[in-house]
């Protein structure tokens, strides 16, 4: 599957295309399939998100997981500061990153 991701313009936070908007949670991301490029161009025009790009991902029961380690780190937060990730209360939340 393919996901569309970028960083929010104002906060710089990592964000994922949900089919109708953007979410900071990768679990909300949808497969953009072959239509990714057109969504990307439309969103670039909207200027809500910085430098959007399309990545490969894998569907899992817990939701989409980026294929490359760099995007997996982006998806949750720094592996060395669990307290600064999107799920600080769950130290095991990042077990799928590495």
């Amino acid at each position, binding site marked *: 599957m393919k996901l569309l991701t970028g*960083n929010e*313009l*104002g*906060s*710089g*936070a*990592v964000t994922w295309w949900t089919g109708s908007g953007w979410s900071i949670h990768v679990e909300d991301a949808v497969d953009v399939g072959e239509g990714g490029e057109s969504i990307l161009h439309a969103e670039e025009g909207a*200027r809500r998100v*910085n*430098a959007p790009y399309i990545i490969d991902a894998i569907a899992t029961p817990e939701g989409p997981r980026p*294929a*490359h*380690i*760099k995007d997996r*780190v*982006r998806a949750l*937060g*720094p*592996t*060395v*500061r669990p307290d*600064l990730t999107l799920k600080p209360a769950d130290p095991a939340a990042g077990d799928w990153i*590495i």
Partner: protein
Amino acid sequence: MYKYDNYDQAIVDARVAEFRDQVNRRMAGEITEDQFKPLRLMNGLYLQLHAYMLRVAIPYGTLDSRQMRMLAHIARKYDRDYGHFTTRQNIQYNWIKLEECADLLEELASVEMHAIQTSGNCIRNISSDQYAGAAADEVADPRPWAELLRQWSTFHPEFSYLPRKFKIAVIASPEDRAAMRLHDIGLELVKQDGELGARVFVGGGMGRTPMIAPEINPFVKADDLLSYIEACLRVYNRYGRRDNIYKARIKILVHEIGADEYRRQVAEEFAHVKTLGIDPPLAELERISAFFAAPAFDAADVEPDRSDPDFAVWLDQNVKPHKQAGYAIVNISLKPIGGIPGDASSAQIDVMADLAEKYSFDELRVTHAQNIVLPHVAKRDLYAVWQALREADLANANLDLISDIIACPGLDYCSLANARSIPIAQKIATRFADAERQRDVGELKLKISGCINACGHHHAGHIGILGVDKKGVENYQLTLGGSGAEDVSIGKITGPGFDEDGIVDAVEKAVEKYRELREGDERFVDTYRRVGMDPFKEAIYG
């Protein structure tokens, strides 16, 4: 310390106002990211993996308690309560919001700080010896020269769009504590027949093509120094490769045309530049130098009481001799076992500011090894300083030992990185957590980079580690024998790389081999140079 004059303050304030307008236009959608990116980078604002990152300049690593407290305030108010001190003696904040950035810069400007020229193809923050003004072995204080170069290079119109970024270091001691010869230009102030001048080295650097800068001129008189540096830059600006980013640094130019030809061209250019009268008048040099006058040292020369064993260990490891009797240089390690190299919480930054104000004539230094220095502490106060540091978890007695690791932010934060650096540093430090064992190993400079750009200075590590991406999996190459000091050298790769746990084991095997082979007072790198790579290779892979 240097204090801004009206010109300094006016240009920094004007830049903040200009950037505020640019941010507003970007937020309003009036300019694209492609248009905005070079503007934000000129103000030190990067977009990293998780957020915007702001790199704040700390000129030659020197700051006072008021500035240090501002760094803590910014960490609290605009970031997530911590900052990351870098190998360029700067500080980075990892979670900055674009919409708040102009306010942040305005607060920074109120204490004579900014983020200008911490990115882009310009002359970056001038770096220097963290012991400047305190070291017994310096021939002069390098800071006035670093400050002169800061002023000269700030918004220099001719050098704002160089082929590539440009880094200058100034030292004034035979002991190189600033990796001087691994800079685009390295200056070592020296005296010849009583006259002050500089040895000029050009074309060093790390990155994907590490090179040690050759000496281009053994003695440039102080009166000519600015003109000579200008000539060095002009030759580079004219002939540096702009067609290939990987060949754009000055080291490639010097290497390709040769040091002799580069030297000849600089001499020719210098003859012209010297007619332009850019070297400052003596009065200006004296004005700048006056800001760096020695503090009013008046403490009696008393040796501290060593009866507390933990204090005694810290004294031996982290406290260095001062040129003034009765004083000492205190190194604050930002490398707790299992911690993140170079990170400090806002509370810790405040503690260091308080200690500087109370015990170090209001001065602090940031080191390229990502530690902090209190340069002028009376020996009678060392125990009190240590107690306060210990209270703040800042009394790690590991300066220059294997756990005093330089590490770039790596894949945990950096968009350029291929592999994580910090977890490797944490695992190695934890493996060698035993203080006795560390001290028995002795001086061992271990440096880790998460990609070939070498922000973690791995080429200059006695042991260096380079993280690479091997088909989407982190892999770590090991190098041995590098040094960023006066015995400068580039490390050599041992062989095939390792996974995350494998690299920790490999480091331990190399260290144990050293302990087996060392003779007398040899450091790790000395033994490596004597016996060569083979015994280490056999221990690591055998």
